[in-house]
């Protein structure tokens, strides 16, 4: 409990609580609150904060698992090596590229799906939702294999089907080139996660007051005008939350790349670099440093989103 109590003390004082002695009832409520929320809080911290601190410590060493006797403290040496290596920046670039493209495509596709679900006839609504939830529930690794086998030059049928498209023929090896390989990786990622974003947007659509859209329609506003002037501005919060969640998720992309190319031909992402360094190469020190840098990137994205774009994450907290 001590962790949570201490941490709570550091939390900003709540303006609604003027400083005055608490009643017994309030104290009891407070205690119950700690007891109920405490276990979940402590577990969440224990499985994340402790390991990341450990990683932070190990990142200061030159340490290879199969050469334990050579372990040596080198301070920030690993970070210097990583940050001066073009590979890190290239992987960061690929990760950012995947994040940006998938989020933009998913936002558009997800918005379309949300609109469809929102205005679908009662008869088909259930079916649409069911269909859309299948990609949401499917295992990412399974999705990766499905897309990989479909495009693979040996086992795939895509080259056969789309041979009429310029640039596609039986000899197109999708996974031998950065751009084609990344397209398939992103397609799998987009397919699997668009349902999530569309459901968030569906919830946002439900927030738009019906009177507003109706009024606009009565005023003769076109579909596009209603969309851009009424609906989208009114669901800005939902869009922002959806984008942030998905961006952070996309930034951690691992499964799809691991299965389809294992990072070959310029498709490597940061998570894979961290995995290969610490788990495949067993360079615990260097790998931990990559992990810490990845973590810092995630924090930076979060910070930018919250400070710059004012994403209100407390949306779910407000109470009634």
């Amino acid at each position, binding site marked *: 409990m001590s962790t949570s109590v201490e941490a709570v003390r550091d939390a900003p004082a709540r303006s609604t609580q003027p400083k005055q002695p608490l009643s017994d009832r309030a104290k009891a409520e407070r205690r119950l609150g700690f007891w109920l929320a405490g276990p979940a809080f402590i577990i969440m911290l224990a499985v994340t904060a402790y390991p990341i601190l450990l990683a932070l410590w190990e990142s200061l060493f030159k340490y290879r698992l199969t*050469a334990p006797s050579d372990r040596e403290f080198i301070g920030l040496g690993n970070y210097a090596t990583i940050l001066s290596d073009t590979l890190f920046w290239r992987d960061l670039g690929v990760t950012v590229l995947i994040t940006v493209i998938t989020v933009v495509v998913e936002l558009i596709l997800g918005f379309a799906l949300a609109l469809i679900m929102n205005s679908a006839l009662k008869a088909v609504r259930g079916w649409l939702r069911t269909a859309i939830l299948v990609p949401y529930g499917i295992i990412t690794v399974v999705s990766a294999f499905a897309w990989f086998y479909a495009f693979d030059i040996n086992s795939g049928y895509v080259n056969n089907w789309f041979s009429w498209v310029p640039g596609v023929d039986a000899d197109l*090896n999708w996974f031998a080139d950065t751009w084609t390989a990344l397209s398939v990786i992103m397609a799998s990622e987009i397919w699997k996660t668009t349902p999530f974003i569309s459901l968030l947007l569906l919830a946002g659509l439900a927030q738009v007051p019906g009177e507003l859209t109706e009024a606009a329609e009565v005023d003769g506003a076109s579909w596009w005008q209603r969309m851009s002037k009424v609906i989208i501005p009114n669901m800005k919060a939902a869009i922002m939350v959806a984008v942030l969640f998905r961006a952070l998720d996309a930034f951690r992309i691992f499964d799809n790349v691991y299965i389809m190319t294992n990072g070959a031909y310029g498709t490597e992402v940061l998570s894979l670099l961290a995995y290969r360094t610490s788990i495949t190469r067993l360079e615990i020190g260097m790998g931990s440093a990559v992990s810490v840098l990845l973590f810092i990137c995630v924090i930076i994205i979060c910070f930018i989103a919250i400070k710059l774009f004012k994403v209100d994450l407390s949306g779910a907290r407000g109470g009634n």
Partner: protein
Amino acid sequence: MPKDARYWGHTRKGARAAAGVALALGATLLSGCGTDEGAAPTLTWYINPDAGGQAELAKQCSDASGGAYTIETSLLPNDAAAQREQLARRLAAGDKSMDIMSLDPPNVPEYAEPGYLAPVPDDVAERTTEGVLEGALAGAKWKDKVVAVPFWANTQILWYRKSVASAAGLDMTQPVTWDQIIEAASSQDKYIGVQGARAESMTVWVNALVASAGGKIVENPDAAADEIKLGLDTDAGKQAAEVVSTIGKEGLGGPGLPTQTENTSMIQFQGDQGSFMVNYPFVWPATNASVEEGALPASLIDDIGWALYPAMNEGEETAPPLGGINLGVGSNSQHPDLAYQAIECIVSPENQAQYFETNGNPPSNEAAYDSPGLEETFPMAPTIRDSLELAVPRPQTPYYNEISTGIQQTWTPPSDVNPDTTPAESQEFILEVLRGEKLL
């Protein structure tokens, strides 16, 4: 931690199985087991995936031990890099269950150097290396000492389509060179089967090419990471790069070359575009199975021929790739003596021959090739044996993983290889990685 807690935790299921075996044995050998206190020790054998042959050998040797031990198998991942990673992590953590391990030869030094392998007793080393083919034995040594027991050995041979070779006028009874098969394939407008994917198979290819040209990828494999000297930026490296680059640039490897693995090159070879292919013996049972399934024409079998791996220069000897599995014992094993006893049983020439016939993995011991009936299943067995005699292992160094990954990253895709720059760049890159100055 109580001394044996973890050990017993790991083998509870094993103990139960062992008890079952003990009971069964008790029924047949009433007197023999009487003096034994409790169940026979269980040895865990970490095996690479196969068609069930290692599990079968585990059972046979357990039965043959008369209750001295029971071997239980535990499966490692399919991919060689993943196998290494699982074993290395367990060994580094001092796992006591590492009784017997199926090891990929290039990884042996990485385990041997920090003392993760229990020493091979001299008498065992002597008995188990007797008659072992030269190449296979080299893969089981570290700093001139036998540190693991050769089990089976793999090598690539040159597979060819007789029709294509004769159309191109290539005499396959004589040793052929890379230049010859490149010319033959390109004159017939066919694809050459090589493994160009960014994977371990690329290192296998490069190593064989460099060695065939008389070079060595690593000059001083025993050295520490920052003192290693590489032999890529040499004439041999350049010759190797010329072969890779020609096949890549001229499209001789087919469109799938940059992702071509052993399996996909075999599929290409079986098709209309097939001509020559360097590959492992699994090609033979796999092709026969496809023909039986009716997926491939029966005439294909008669069109397939085999020869030694191509040489680099006419009149010089070839240096085919070496693969296979050695058996090692973890230094924290509770029963190293029994483990080595079990290993001696597993690697007996009869068992190696049986494993070859049932699972297609060639023996490391010469004697196994004399096994009757072997040539019926594998008519190319003599070629395989000859190839194993000449085979050159990949660099035997604890930093093999870095070197191999470095080669994979700089020598793929084959069409981007430039004989004038790639060897030097790849050498520089690997050295920087080894010095810890660069990420891999």
